[in-house]
């Protein structure tokens, strides 16, 4: 997802401006000149400065219409619907894990995430299922028994 530097730069200028604005509300340390707002403001100003530089570079590069740099071929996936689908599906699987793990329990939710990701990467369905279940079980045993992390048990509570 290679975008023109100018777009990133503009976003950074926006972020810097918003940060500076928000930082104005931070109270100072009583009796001192320098409080909670100094550091974020300085950082935000520099960030916006870098953003401006990127905007400038990006616009100039566009005008000159340089041939793409060798490293820029990575941007090709943007036209591939499959790539976008994979990205969205992977993010959705992790988000789904966060939402449903408390209900389903770690084992089921994690097995679903791993199986799903394997399928996205073109694994054979039965291989994906085996890897998904095995990963979930191994991690579950390691983290609950050895490290005593209270992983959510969900509907599998009786076990």
């Amino acid at each position: 997802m290679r975008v023109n530097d100018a777009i990133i730069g503009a976003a950074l200028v926006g972020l810097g401006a918003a940060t500076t604005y928000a930082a104005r509300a931070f109270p100072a340390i009583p009796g001192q000149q320098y409080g909670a707002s100094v550091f974020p403001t300085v950082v935000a100003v520099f960030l916006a400065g870098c953003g401006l530089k990127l905007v400038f570079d990006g616009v100039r590069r566009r005008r000159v219409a340089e041939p793409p740099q060798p490293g820029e071929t990575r941007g090709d996936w943007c036209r591939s619907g499959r790539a976008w689908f994979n990205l969205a599906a992977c993010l959705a699987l992790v988000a789904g894990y966060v939402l449903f793990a408390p209900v389903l329990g770690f084992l089921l939710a994690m097995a679903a995430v791993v199986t799903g990701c394997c399928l996205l990467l073109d694994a054979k369905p039965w291989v994906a299922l085996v890897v998904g279940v095995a990963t979930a079980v191994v991690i579950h045993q390691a983290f609950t028994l050895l490290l005593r992390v209270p992983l959510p048990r969900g509907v599998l509570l009786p076990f």
Partner: protein
Amino acid sequence: MQAIEAAFGLVFQGHVLLVIGLAAAFGLFVGAIPGLTATMAIALLVPVTFFMDPITAVGAMISCSAMAIFAGDIPGTLLRIPGTPASAAYTSEAYAMTRKGEGEIALGANLFFSALGGLFGTAVLIIGAPMLAEVALKFSSFEYFWLALLGLTCAVFIGSGSATKGLVSLFLGLLIATVGLNNPAGVPRFTFGSVDLMGGVDFIPAMIGLFAVSEVLRVMVHGTAGWSAPQAAVGNLFTGWGRMFVKYWPQQLRGNVMGTAIGALPGAGADIAAWVSYATSRKFSKTPEKFGTGHVEGIIESTSANNAALAGAWVPALVFGIPGDSITAVVIGVLYIKGLNPGPTIFINNPQMIYAVFIIFILANVAMIPLGWAAIKAAKQILRVPRNLLMPAILAFCIVGAFATNNAAYGVVLMLGFGVLGFIMEENDIPIAPCILGIVLGPMLEENFVTSMIKSEGSFLAFFERPIAAACGIATLAIWFAPPLIRLVRRARSAPAAA
């Protein structure tokens, strides 16, 4: 003396050695898989070390990182794909040797000189760190402010690529560091009303996201088609070790010194050390024309350098609490969590801990020879692990690791956010390391800045009044302003010539 005995007692326990051995195997595996970096190995290891006592945790991280940096040479030599960025400098050279049928000499050199480089770096760490710690005891907020700033400066300016993009990454990291209550005034900043964010952005989920989840997302998008299994059979690895050591000792020594120095420089680590050393080797070589055709000289110098840098990076990390590279950035985070705040006082209050670190470093580098040998022999199998099954399993590790830091789903959300951020940054050539250094050093920078400003009643001159502070300050400013000044002078000189 008592402290040294205590340190041996701490290290030579069954479970400590077992964990160190397992971490080494893990490091070898992750380092040998292209795309998975040493920093990523550490990021995945950290949630597990959470539940260990400090020595075991630190030992695991040392052995894992040392092995991963070495193992990165294996796919570089066999497939021309560096396993970690630290091997990238000499990948083409090593692969050229493989094509000439000298693969075992290249891998043997990588193994032998990696271990030697690591031991050299360790020796410097053992001698240098305590001496530096005595000086550091006299440091005040002014010196620490400059040191933190110097570290961040090096991270941006010494790395390859665009300085602007390095700065963007750094400032993003510093901005992330301001989130939460943890600031001199103790007011909540950028928490958006979330109780979770009050405590600040949790470092470990952020790390896992930036270094590991971003890589998973990249594979999701770009697919797993990549490398084929290596064809070349690897013969006797120990061929020519004595001859190479005798013939190339100056190169090796120079690589060791350069690597340790670059590693010890705050903010610059193993990958930069390898690039600089490879270039130096070529420049001073009697036969520079052989470079690039499968010549072992440059490999020896740079493979020594990247492992030496690893130990060198611990010098500023232990003495000042300022990370020498992104791996020690994580280590510092873990030390704080364990209540072992790095800094000069740790050498006085916890000497056995420091000695234990030294012992583990020596152990790890000695163990590298047999373990590395095994990894090279198993390379075919390691590289045959299907990535379309490995990446989902890594994602599972990321999720459970991010969860385990606080036993809260908030960690997983944070991890996902940072994964997307890291993915977007890498797609656009914005380096990640400065961001992570910013997150680690941000609080230190701010605290020392505000304390100093209050002490000096708002006078910036006070930052230059103490001698060491002044030296650090001038060095920092020089790195900032030297490149544009040199450019101006050059332009001024060439202008009359052109006219």
